[in-house]
């Protein structure tokens, strides 16, 4: 269980550019659930993800995982717990390292990194086998630089990287937003399989209302740093994309609606 207890995040506190990004988030997320998070630009949804990852430490409030307080642990210390896929494929992996070196880095996520060889025969076998799941032919390109892959291929490898080492929480930050539609669909299919197989507690931030309802078991909407909608089960099954847009109208007023959301 992830528990967020009255989480506030204030950037540049006391300065002219002060921004109150999260204004008292209270959430309880059961282990194994798949939560989709929507909200307009600047609503605080990415900050929420950053707070769970450890990139942003809460100004006030408490984050607990399985009753352990992790509020003050930074990203490095939470890495054993949290796997992530970023929106920008360039951020999620190292272009200047080979595919196998990137996988080796991810394989040691949250573990001690000693002087043992990063790439042993046994690891390579595992990496090859995992890459073959993608059917992209990458299993024969282990030595190539990550930077030589397309954005979609890099994102697919990022998903493999997220699942190479065991972790409890998977954070997906608009991880299909930078991809073309067919690649985005492929990545979502892969995401779905991985979440099923590895039994993560998943949070997926998305710009697409369609994705938010089609995937996962629960949907929350963030606006102005607060949770304004939280639906699961029957209630969620009945929701349509139009209902969500309707809700947006009510909260933000017509003019504020993100063009991208309507397109999706």
């Amino acid at each position: 269980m992830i528990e967020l207890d009255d989480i506030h995040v204030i950037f540049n506190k006391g300065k002219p550019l002060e921004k109150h990004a999260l204004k008292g988030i209270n959430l309880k997320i059961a282990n194994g659930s798949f939560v989709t998070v929507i909200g307009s630009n600047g609503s605080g949804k990415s900050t929420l993800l950053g707070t769970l990852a450890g990139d942003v430490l809460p100004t006030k409030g408490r984050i607990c995982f399985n009753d352990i307080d992790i509020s003050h642990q930074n990203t490095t210390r939470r890495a054993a717990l949290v796997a992530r896929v970023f929106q920008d494929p360039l951020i999620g992996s190292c272009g200047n390292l080979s595919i196998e070196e990137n996988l080796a880095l991810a394989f040691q996520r949250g573990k001690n990194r000693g002087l043992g060889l990063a790439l042993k025969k046994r690891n390579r076998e595992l990496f090859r086998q995992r890459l073959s799941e993608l059917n992209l032919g990458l299993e024969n390109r282990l030595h190539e630089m990550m930077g030589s892959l397309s954005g979609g291929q890099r994102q697919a490898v990022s998903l493999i990287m997220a699942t190479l080492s065991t972790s409890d929480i998977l954070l997906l930050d608009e991880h299909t937003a930078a991809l073309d539609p067919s690649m985005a669909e492929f990545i979502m299919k892969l995401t779905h399989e991985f979440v099923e197989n590895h039994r993560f507690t998943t949070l997926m931030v998305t710009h697409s209302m369609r994705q938010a309802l089609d995937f996962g078991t629960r949907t929350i909407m963030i606006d102005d740093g607060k949770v304004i909608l939280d639906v699961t089960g029957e209630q969620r099954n009945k929701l349509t994309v139009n209902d969500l847009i309707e809700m947006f109208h009510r909260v933000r007023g017509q003019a504020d609606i993100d063009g991208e959301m309507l397109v999706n």
Partner: protein
Amino acid sequence: MWWYLSQNALLGAVESGLIYGFVGLGVYISFRVLDFPDLTVEGSFPLGAAVVVVAILAGYDPWLATLFAAIAGALAGLVTAALNQIGKIPNLLASILTSTALYSVNLHILGGANVPLMTGDTIFTPFSSSQISDAVMRPLVLAFLGIIIIALLWRYFESNSGLAMRATGVNPRMSRAQGVSTAAQIFIGMALSNALVAIGGALFAQVNRYADSSLGIGTIVLGLAAVIIGSTFMPWKRIIFPLIGCFIGSIVYWVALAYALNGIPGMTPFDLNLVTAGLIAFVLIAIGKFGGALNDRT
């Protein structure tokens, strides 16, 4: 004739190239692996020289004295890392502060501006023999040492810890998400880098049999010359190639310099730094114009 260079001048150039190859390795680790522009080297090179000379004069074994020099260099690197990571001083400025402070430290260690190493064994002494001249023996010993250090570094960069250091320089955000403590990597990397530079200084002092507080001037440019020229000869991305490249680049640079000083009329040793800066500017402009891929980091 301009292409004529005496055998001794050529051997001397190769010798200097090998010594500054160690500096090149250190500069490669800070500038390229960690993406941390580090001028500490201007202080850690003479620090290595000062420590080794004083230690040998105090009666220590030259290998042990060289180890002391490496440790002193590592400490200098740690100071820069601490100023940057704990003091939050921008990396370039932090390193300038350390190298400035080291100037005083070096004067204290030497007890003056210049100390000759007239007596006492160096690491080269046991290899001296009547079969082979010292001018040939020293480059051979230096090359052998270089190969050992390259092999050790290669092995390190292929380990889990070394991979974490390489990732830290390329993509710190991703590295943290993978559980790498980027701060720790910068401490380790800066210590390693300046230890190598100090070893370079220690070898310089043993070859030339003196240490001088002003030895450090231009060290960074000589190190960068090794890295940059090396990367044009060894452009491949696997980590072993740039490591070897540091030595190749450094030797090419010193031999070219020897030819320039010898062959261009009116050139004197006074022009050394002028030629150095000019040559590096030339190489950088050439890379910028024709080899953009070399600067590609993502």
